[in-house]
């Protein structure tokens, strides 16, 4: 696509509809971006200016923007009651352990469902797909009781240990991907005397890097987003994740410090935006894969 090309080049008919269409698309794009722009704008204003909701993008005086921004963001980072760095650390622990476990275990199960012949394979595959439909609230009461029995309530374990047993959706996604890898490859390996374990490690896994990246990305996003899990399983503030910690900024009394809350929200979103910019292709393709299969 030629960015910044001429509006109407020789062969193309000068179409008034084209102009209307682009005007509409620009308006729509702005509508979608405005909330994020306003979030950042609020986060770089002093409290009183932010709270007044005046229609300005930069604080007044605009020359002090960086100074005020630094002040707000360091206030969020250094706050003693809502400890952003601690919540970030907890979220990263859950995300790292969860992503590794989820990717590995889902790949192992998907291998069993696509490459190993055994009776009952179809039934298990059906069950895996069926469990995707179970709403989490159905499981949350008994899970709470199970984790309480194990003494895990108030630890991060309920948030990452289950990931080591694979996730239904990810297993399904990887299975579909493994099915597209030509069978001749592992049959050749088999003739050379490769065991299933070696075939899995040396042939299937290296060929599946894009699909594994998608699973890792999904689980990372899931952890970053998960609110209900931490709400139920964590009991004290030291273990909070970002999603749970963010609501602590919200004041019940009605004098929320919007500039700080928006700064914290910006901080929470930015890794995801960064990840998106860096892996844009994988990202969009993976979201598309989620809906198509």
């Amino acid at each position, binding site marked *: 696509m030629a960015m910044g090309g001429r509006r109407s080049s020789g062969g193309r008919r000068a179409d008034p509809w084209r102009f209307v269409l682009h005007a509409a698309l620009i308006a*729509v794009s702005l509508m979608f971006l405005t909330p994020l722009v306003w979030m950042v704008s609020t986060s770089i204003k002093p409290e009183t200016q932010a709270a007044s909701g005046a229609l300005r993008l930069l604080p007044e005086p605009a020359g002090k923007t960086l100074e005020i921004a630094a002040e707000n963001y360091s206030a969020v980072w250094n706050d003693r009651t809502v400890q952003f760095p601690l919540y970030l650390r907890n979220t990263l622990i859950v995300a790292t352990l969860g992503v590794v476990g989820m990717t590995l275990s889902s790949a192992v199960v998907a291998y069993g469902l696509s490459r190993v012949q055994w009776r009952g394979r179809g039934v298990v595959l059906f069950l895996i797909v069926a469990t995707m439909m179970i709403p989490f609230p159905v*499981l949350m*009461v008994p899970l709470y009781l199970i984790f309480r029995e194990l003494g895990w309530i108030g630890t991060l374990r309920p948030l990452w240990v289950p990931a080591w047993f694979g996730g239904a959706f990810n297993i399904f996604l990887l299975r579909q991907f493994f099915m597209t890898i030509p069978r001749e490859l592992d049959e050749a390996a088999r003739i050379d005397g490769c065991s299933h374990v070696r075939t899995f490690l040396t042939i299937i896994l290296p060929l599946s890097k894009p699909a594994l990246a998608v699973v890792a990305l999904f689980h990372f996003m899931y952890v970053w987003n998960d*609110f209900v899990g931490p709400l139920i399983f964590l009991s004290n503030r030291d273990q909070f994740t970002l999603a749970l910690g963010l609501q602590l900024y919200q004041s019940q009394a009605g004098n929320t410090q919007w500039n700080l809350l928006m700064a914290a929200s910006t901080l*929470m979103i930015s890794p995801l935006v960064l990840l998106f910019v860096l892996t844009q292709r994988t990202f969009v*393709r993976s*979201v598309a894969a989620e*809906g*198509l299969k």
Partner: protein
Amino acid sequence: MWVSPWLIGSGLFVMLPMAMSLWYSLTDYPLLEPPLFVGLDNYRRMWSDPTFWRVVNNTAVFAAVSIPVYTAVGLVLAGVLSSRVRFARLYQACIFLPTLTPLIAAAMVWMWLFNGEYGLVNRLLGLVGIRGPTWLVDSAWVMPALVIMSVWGVGQAMVVYIAAMQDVPRSLYEAAELDGMGPARRFIHVTLPMISPAILFNVISLLIAAVQVFAVPFVMFRRPDGQHPKGHFYSMYLYENAFIYGQMGYASAMAWVQLLVVLGLTGVLMVVSRKMVHYTRV
């Protein structure tokens, strides 16, 4: 065996909890005391619990309004942006970006935007002389606010639909054009039928998600005196019963009703759509 991680995992974290939940749903279980069998009492209690019916009603309205609006907007945007429009990728990126926002951060941002006095939405409405409502307080505007917020995340569906539309064979469009169909009719008669499996899958996912909507209304409509009556949803009431009122039995019964509703609605959608969904590839 290769699938043992999943078998163990789902046994521990899905099957066992389901069985426990079914048993608890037949008991009176105030958390600190052992469960006491009461038969179908919990289910009968739901029938006569006004709060239960209120959250059912709110959840149903939310699903019934947000899913069609969201899907229609997603389809139209995908239809426009999958055609050869200049800068399509740039527009797509702008619309997709908000979907990266974690739900809880999105809820915070929109609480600020919808603030009755100082929020950006009402400030902008004020510019054109409209006095905006107190979105998150006024009962009439709670649902529209939630729907607007859910449409903000339409980038997700748009990307899926664009991917599906790119798989539609060009030849079909050429044939339709020869038949004298304009862009709008081509969209309705060629594109929509061809991507109907993706639409069905997306709608089912949305339905499952809408039935359990929790985090966003949980933080947006919390008031010092409890939840806003219009911003109170099924999963939230289930959570309150279990973890605030300590009624594990009643919460479990609600959970089973929720599960059956999800399965039932999915089944109905599958059957109803059988004639409308067009499968060409497997």
